[in-house]
């Protein structure tokens, strides 16, 4: 399969829309006095991370695209470029996004790339643009391989991936409360995604959806936004710097330091790369599961409520 098919680079074309929407959200917050918070250095860091993400795509995009074109050469299937095929590709790519995103929270190697998106203590439209510079190094492009082998052209797969990213932009806001019930049931919304950005024990590691929240409901990772528990945004251990270089690379540095400690077994070194964030060889740190268990132990009335486990038998 060597035919040349081109699709518009929708993310770059959406840049003016991103800027206009940020200005509109900011003015809304300033005029209304509610609906979110902005802070200069936080927003600046997010915007620089977004620009760096575009730059890294220009510099390193050939790696993933080369891999996809190689797969396209060997697959005997070509589903064409009809509207129905593009629609199907969009849905399947969103399923792909769900799993890549879930891996991004549960495998430290992938989290090292994704963590910067969660590193703001704010939640506004600039947070949506706080994107990774190091996605290529996670090798998560392999999760797209089945789509190419099934006969979806690589350009189409990247096109629908871009649409997915653009969809997710508008859900990074506190200015919108809840959407209509039918929409909240099917689609990812500001409410569902606020929960995903929470550092509250209840809200850790849930709502991985990109466009369709139904994936979380199918795979058991959905947690609703609870009126009685306001979302606290950021990381379990918040950063003490706005330096974009440190924001982009801090978890990679952390992995390197952990995995190269003297006296560890090779299994422990590997586990520092592939186990969930918070794993440690001596149990001195907490994973999200341990944080949730501890939270329930200290607040037994919260046991078995959304996002939290049953009461443990013994002190975690």
């Amino acid at each position, binding site marked *: 399969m060597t035919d040349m098919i081109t699709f518009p680079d929708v993310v770059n074309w959406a840049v003016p829309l991103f800027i206009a929407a*940020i200005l509109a959200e900011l003015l809304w917050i300033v005029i209304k006095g509610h609906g979110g918070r902005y802070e200069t250095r936080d927003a600046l860091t997010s915007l620089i991370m977004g620009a760096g993400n575009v730059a890294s795509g220009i510099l390193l995009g050939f790696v993933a695209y080369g891999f996809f074109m190689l797969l396209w050469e060997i697959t005997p299937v070509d589903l064409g470029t009809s509207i129905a095929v593009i629609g199907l590709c969009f849905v399947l790519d969103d399923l792909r996004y769900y799993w890549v995103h879930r891996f991004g929270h549960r495998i430290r190697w992938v989290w090292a790339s994704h963590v910067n998106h969660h590193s703001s203590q704010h939640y506004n439209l600039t947070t949506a643009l706080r994107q990774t510079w190091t996605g290529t190094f996670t090798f998560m492009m392999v999760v797209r391989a089945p789509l190419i082998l099934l006969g979806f052209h690589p350009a189409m797969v990247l096109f629908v991936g871009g649409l997915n990213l653009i969809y997710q932009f508008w859900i990074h806001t506190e200015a919108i409360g809840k959407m209509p019930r039918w929409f909240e049931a099917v689609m990812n919304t500001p409410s569902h995604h606020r929960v995903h950005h929470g550092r509250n024990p209840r809200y850790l590691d849930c709502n991985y959806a990109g466009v369709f929240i139904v994936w979380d409901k199918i795979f058991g990772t959905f947690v609703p936004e609870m009126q009685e528990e306001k979302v606290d945004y950021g990381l379990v251990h918040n950063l003490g710097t706005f330096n974009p270089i440190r924001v982009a690379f801090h978890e990679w540095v952390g992995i390197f330091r952990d995995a190269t400690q003297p006296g560890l077994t090779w299994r422990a070194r590997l586990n520092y790369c592939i186990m969930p964030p918070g794993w440690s060889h001596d149990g001195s740190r907490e994973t999200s599961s341990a944080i949730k268990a501890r939270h329930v132990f200290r607040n037994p009335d919260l046991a078995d409520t959304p996002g939290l486990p049953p009461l443990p038998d013994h002190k975690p």
Partner: protein
Amino acid sequence: MPLSILLPMVVMGIAAIAVLLHLLGLSRQATLTNAEAARAAWLREFPTDAPIHVTLCANRSAALIASETGRGVVWPMGADTTARYLTGARARRTKTGLRLDLPDYTAPRIHLTLDPDETAAWQDALKETA
């Protein structure tokens, strides 16, 4: 989109938003209203290590924390706060207070604005930690 359009648009867009935010007064740093606020900010980062003693600095921009685990500091991160233990920290006097260098890639340097008496007291306290 051609790079010749994308690049200037991104640079000017980022600059315009940053200037606008600053002009709207959204560059103000968080202040810790009292010792209880400092304690809450510490517990937000270290929920299992309650402060035994909180020393809030005079301008309420930071607090020195003593807990069972050791000493730590709470300081503003823009409009929010964060906290770190001071294990391995080095303190240097500056014209406005203290500069703390931490062996932590995510919080390498903390600038504290302290009055001269506070600076001496905090430096003494930090010597015990290092």
